[in-house]
């Protein structure tokens, strides 16, 4: 019996070796997925979907554990990554906050404490107003805001984060002025708009879909270079693909998107980076991932290597410009 087991084990091992092209680095112990948001947040959903796909398709032989370290707008998770220098068994999940947080707050990590692995998707931003608001399109809403400067309210999640950055960009581009009200998350910003306590928000599709379905809020335009993918109608015969881009709607703003990113600690072997980039690429090609992307109306876009680092450099520069003109930079 024992001999049989050994034989079976050896056979299994050779099968695995045959299936997986002899990658130079393989995990040798359980892997931690460090999530830079609290449970239920956008990054949390992202990491847990990736975890469930990896488990289902057996893309990694070792078990994967998800750890939430969302304190300090996610800085807690990145600092944890910094502390795990050289340990390729800790994978950090985040957004563009990985390289933007150190600009706006004095934190115990630098962007160079992380090794870029890949991005899997771009989350979109839209201008949403109340369902029964009198504005037909984005242009009309911006004109209304211009007519009464500093009286319309824009809700968003957190402070000096993506929503407020986007609001600052719109103000810069159009000359309108809003009162920005920071809430704890996109969910609160959505209900505040549905209840009519604020005039608009810049939520991601997934954060407002429940309210849009009920007709409590409506989208005016999306900050994407092209329209979103066609979808089933969400409300009143309109789906995600029917929303005009903000450029089409006449706002002089190119695009504003948030990458869903994956990082490793500094000083990990290059083979380990390649290993995870490869796993993430496989994840991005599964039907489960396509279904998640469609359901949350994000844009699927896999990036690794130079393509990813170029994207980061460009995105960092664009955001840093806003941080400087708003006076948020701390260092």
């Amino acid at each position, binding site marked *: 019996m024992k001999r049989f087991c050994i034989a079976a084990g050896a056979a299994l091992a050779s099968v695995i070796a045959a299936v997986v092209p002899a990658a130079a680095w393989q995990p040798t112990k359980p892997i931690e997925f460090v999530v830079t948001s609290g449970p239920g947040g956008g990054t949390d959903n992202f990491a847990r979907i990736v975890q469930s796909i990896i488990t289902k398709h057996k893309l990694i032989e070792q078990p994967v554990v998800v750890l939430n370290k969302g304190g300090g707008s996610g800085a*807690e998770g990145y600092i944890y990554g910094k502390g795990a220098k050289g340990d390729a068994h800790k994978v950090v999940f985040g957004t563009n906050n990985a390289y933007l947080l150190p600009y706006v707050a004095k934190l115990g990590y630098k962007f160079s404490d992380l090794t870029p692995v890949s991005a899997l998707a771009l989350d979109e931003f839209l201008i949403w107003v109340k369902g029964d608001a009198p504005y037909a399109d984005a242009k009309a809403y911006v004109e209304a805001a211009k007519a009464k400067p500093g009286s319309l309210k824009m809700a968003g999640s957190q402070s000096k984060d993506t929503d407020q950055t986007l609001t600052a960009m719109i103000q810069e581009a159009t000359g309108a002025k809003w009162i920005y009200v920071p809430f704890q998350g996109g969910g609160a910003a959505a209900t505040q708009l549905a209840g009519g306590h604020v005039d608009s928000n810049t939520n991601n599709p997934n954060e407002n879909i429940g309210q849009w379905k009920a007709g409590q809020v409506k989208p005016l335009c999306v900050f994407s270079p092209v329209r979103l993918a066609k979808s089933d109608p969400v409300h009143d015969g309109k789906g995600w693909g029917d929303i005009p881009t903000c450029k089409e709607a006449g706002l002089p703003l190119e695009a504003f998107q948030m990458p869903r990113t994956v990082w490793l600690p500094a000083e990990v072997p290059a083979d380990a980076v390649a290993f995870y980039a490869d796993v993430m690429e496989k994840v991005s090609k599964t039907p489960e991932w396509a279904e998640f992307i469609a359901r949350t109306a994000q844009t699927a876009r896999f990036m690794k290597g130079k393509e990813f680092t170029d994207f980061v450099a460009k995105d960092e520069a664009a955001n840093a410009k806003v941080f400087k003109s708003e006076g948020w930079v701390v260092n």
Partner: protein
Amino acid sequence: MENFASLLHGFQIALTTHHVALMMAGVLLGILVGVLPGLGAPNGVSLMLPLTFSMDPVSAIILLTSLYWGALFGGSTTSILFNIPGEPSSVATTFDGHPMAKQGRATEALSFAFLSAGFGAMAGVILITLLSGWVARFALKFSSPEYFAVYFMTFASFVGLGGASPFKTIVSMAMGFAFASIGMDSVSGNVRLTYEFDVLLAGVSFLIAVIGLFGIGELLQTMEEGLRFEGVKAKVSPRDVLATALKLPRYWLALLRSSIIGIWMGITPGGPTAASFMSYAMAKRSSRNPEKFGKGEPEGVISPETADHAAGSSAMLPMLALGIPGSATAAVMMGGLMIWGLNPGPMLFVERPDFVWGLIASMYLGNVVAVIVVLATVPLFASILRIPFSIIGPAIVVVCFIGAYTVGNKAFDIWLALAFGIVGYLFKKLDYPIAPLVLAMVIGDKAEDAFRQSMIFSQGSLSIFWSNPLVASLMAIGLALLLFPLIGSTRRGIRKLVTARAAKA
């Protein structure tokens, strides 16, 4: 009536052998995580979440919510037996629950706690069944000023409570506010009070404070008093459970009042912890013999427990209908909903009635199952007190430290729990109340955020707290709660003065 038909359909879904078995498993696991301080319901639910990925959404949510009910029940057990709340929402249960256990009435206290908790949960679920549409619309009326007014009511009902000197209460509360403000401030986006220590960036969790102040603090005091728990010789028999159940209807007024407070705090953003504190405060104020509170008064167990569970179950409604998580556990469950492919929000009731009503039906069944299971464990838990302190004491220390570590997977939290333990010990020696500190830590930062958001709304004018009938009446109730005890004591003072003068003359 339409809701009633949907509910019957929901029962058909929930009442299968498979689902009832899931409820039993969920409740038992929940009791386990609830009993261990620190390893509360949010941790338990996130640990179970990956297991649910392969289940259908109805089974998954039944498992997770049952675990939640179980954890709420388990949290009260340790409050009563060891003065160590398993969950922050059972802190108020320690006030009278633990003195009862010390007097050898552990079985009675536990039975009261579980039965009234079951009653509260039922009240919450019945409300969801009957008024789901109305409550969802009402909750949309709430914005930051109304949120602040609700928090203000909670603090106000607690400040004038008496017991310790008001000065000491305020010192304790102020310390709680200070701890709550450590870390990233979401309104300004700045880091506060961390002194560039990375470990403080995520703030100080109130769970750590509860573990330290109550758990470690209590053990330090017990060690000083002679290394044993009082009330050890309590007789335990299943018959006592029944006898207590028969006594429960006597407290119908407390049950009713606490259910209303709990439901109110559950659908508004107060949450279970605030609900249990407020309910305790109201019970003591309206009691004919308030001096009995804190010394083992059954009403002091029934009131917070009923409100805690009424709030816990009615908080599910804003989560499902609006997509606002009412508690940390609800936030984890909402993440689960999204992974299962459901969008919480107003249309969930229309699009997936099988899911929503299956869940609501399972809340009825789950709570009945939970009450039966926990009542069956009462004799077992009560007999834990018979174990010599030299064995149980170190075990509690270990459990406390494991719990502290689990909260955020940080070794630093263990030291922090120890520090809070020393603070808790000093507080007891110097006769400072611990509860206001915990209350301020749990809802202090939320109250601060709501206040500052209101100030952004109004561009700095306090008149926003009187700007509509809803917020104005909430603030008025809050002020009344704050001022009534003052007026009462001044009037008594004046009367004493007058009678003294009359006596002289």
